[in-house]
């Protein structure tokens, strides 16, 4: 069984084979032979040589959370088809970092902005979050108006980057 895990913009290719309680996990040219047991739903006890790895795994809508010895990792299983997917990473992040309410909009379509200018202020959980311009450019579109509810990841403002930068 081949599996691809995505974690913070990296993809990890792993293979795993099972024989009863024994698992053969291969990653990065190394094979790990482990014994494993699910002692409670989501609670794994994995024996790797004389070490015991205890971890807890849960599945959300899209993500898995893995708790290993006090650290938690958010991971997603992904399908890779043909060529590896080329996800374009935004150079400057204009997505809302949080779900909340738009309390102030500083720009309108057509405005010129300088890198670092505040474009929009979002309030959530009693704090203010500032959306700043990631580069010099011109505002193409503002996707929200004041008092709108905004969800995490939604695009706040669209900016055309100045060519000379």
């Amino acid at each position, binding site marked *: *069984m*081949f*599996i691809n*895990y*995505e*974690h*913070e*913009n*990296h*993809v*990890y*290719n*792993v*293979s*795993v*084979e*099972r*024989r*009863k309680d024994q*698992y053969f*996990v*291969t*990653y*990065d040219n190394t094979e*790990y032979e*482990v014994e*494993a047991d*699910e002692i409670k739903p989501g609670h*794994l006890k*994995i024996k*790797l040589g004389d070490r015991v790895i205890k*971890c*807890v*795994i*849960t599945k*959300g809508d899209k993500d898995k*959370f*893995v708790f*290993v*010895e*006090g*650290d*938690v*990792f958010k*991971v997603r299983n992904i399908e890779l088809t043909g060529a*590896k*997917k080329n996800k374009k990473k935004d150079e400057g992040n204009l997505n809302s*970092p*949080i*779900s*909340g309410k738009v309390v*102030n909009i500083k720009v309108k379509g057509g405005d010129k902005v300088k890198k670092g200018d505040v474009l929009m202020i979002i*309030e*959530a*959980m*009693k*704090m*203010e*979050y500032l959306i700043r311009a990631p580069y010099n450019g011109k505002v193409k579109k503002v996707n929200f108006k004041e008092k709108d509810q905004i969800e*995490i990841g939604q695009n706040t403002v669209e900016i055309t980057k100045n060519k000379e930068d």
Partner: protein
Amino acid sequence: MEWIILFKKVLIANRGEIAVRIIKACQEMGIKTVAVYSEADENAPHVQLADETVNLGDPTPIESYLNIPKIIKVAQDVGADAVHPGYGFLAENPDFAKSCNDKKMKFIGPSPKVISLMGDKIAAKKIMEKAGVPVIPGYHGVKQDNSSLVEEGKKIGFPLLVKAAAGGGGKGMRIVHSEDVLKDSIESAKRESKSAFGNDTVFLEKYIDKPRHIEFQILADEHGNIIHLFERECSIQRRHQKIIEETPSPVMTPELREKMGKAAIKAAEAVGYSNAGTVEFMVDGNLNFYFMEMNTRLQVEHPITEMTTGVDLAKWQLRIASGMKLTLKQKDLIQRGHAIECRIYAENPSNGFLPSIGTLTKVESPTGPNVRNDTGIYAGMKITPYYDPMLAKLIVSSENREECINKMIWALSRYVVLGVTTNVSFLKKVLSHDEFKKGNITTHFIDNHFKDWMSTKEGLPVEALIALAVYDSMHSKTQEIVRYKESDPHSPWKHVGRWRMGADS
């Protein structure tokens, strides 16, 4: 001991861990409890625990936990004879306190007048200055136009602080390092204050170098008896909000403790305080201390005082509000051992401590001697942007600071909260930092040592990958396959590894 009739039924105008804490205290004392809740909290622990529950409707705080007329009506309907506000929400709202008292339901806190006074940071400082409690040099005046404020700021010198008069928890606060950003900072602080508190008055004050935030817990009854329950060191903050508190302070001496304790009592006396309360001081590198503000309510971090003094502060709030005299005497109080609290937040320390939202898929907390977990969460709970992202408080105590840090690291390493990003790993890193272990902490500790900290610089550890693969294999519906035995170097088993999204592998 004097016998006073305690309340029969108390309505708790709050949610989360503090509502749970107060309900338990009431139940132990034989007081009936009424929980209120918004629709988002229908299944919350405070609702499950209480003897009676009333739905306040819409999850928006202003429609539920901040809705004074609605809460007052509910309290009257259920026949409550007292209202406990917890912290946050209406805890320091003098109108709410007055409305309760007007309807003959005792507000568990000081008088509305005292709340009002202490809510105005400028007025509070003036009173303290007059009472002989040291305050930080600054401008606390009525001139609030930007140019006057800029002039006053220049007089104080840089760095200086712009603070919302009505503020708290870092909201409406700006640090200004030079004249050229002073005006912008004043405007921004005013706007945030307006939005958060409906009031845009700000004040300016000298910014203290190597500052520590050290506060004193007090208890004051309605008969003029006041005691302090020693200090709490709350310097470990991010975004001006505390995340780790401990007691005793690593920097405290018996002499300084006595001096600051007396100042705290003086501060409470100066305003005729009753209830549990906290006097916050700023302490500089030379151990000079300055009054900052007084919180007229139970504090988030009250458990560390409870663990080191053995005093139950929530129960004393209830006794004091029912008119009982403090039977605890200053000389009988004993500060013993060391206690630390870590606040477990739904937030991402690798991304500016932005709150994270989602559904909790798993919640399991460690137990053990001297491990206390004050929590209001449960598996299946939705973490929404409506409320504060603090999920729980983990408190531990031990014989000394070193052991206490070790116990906290042990406990955090076994604190399972999955489904949202939390600060648990980050807290462990802070506690494990050499300078923290030495007690060399200031309110800048996080900025100085953890700027641009990433939870997973190293990527996914191999243990996590093994666990994931095993888990997926266990839960896969495909047949077990026979071991692929060949040792062909071109075997697909050799080709697995890590590569960056969008880059060549």
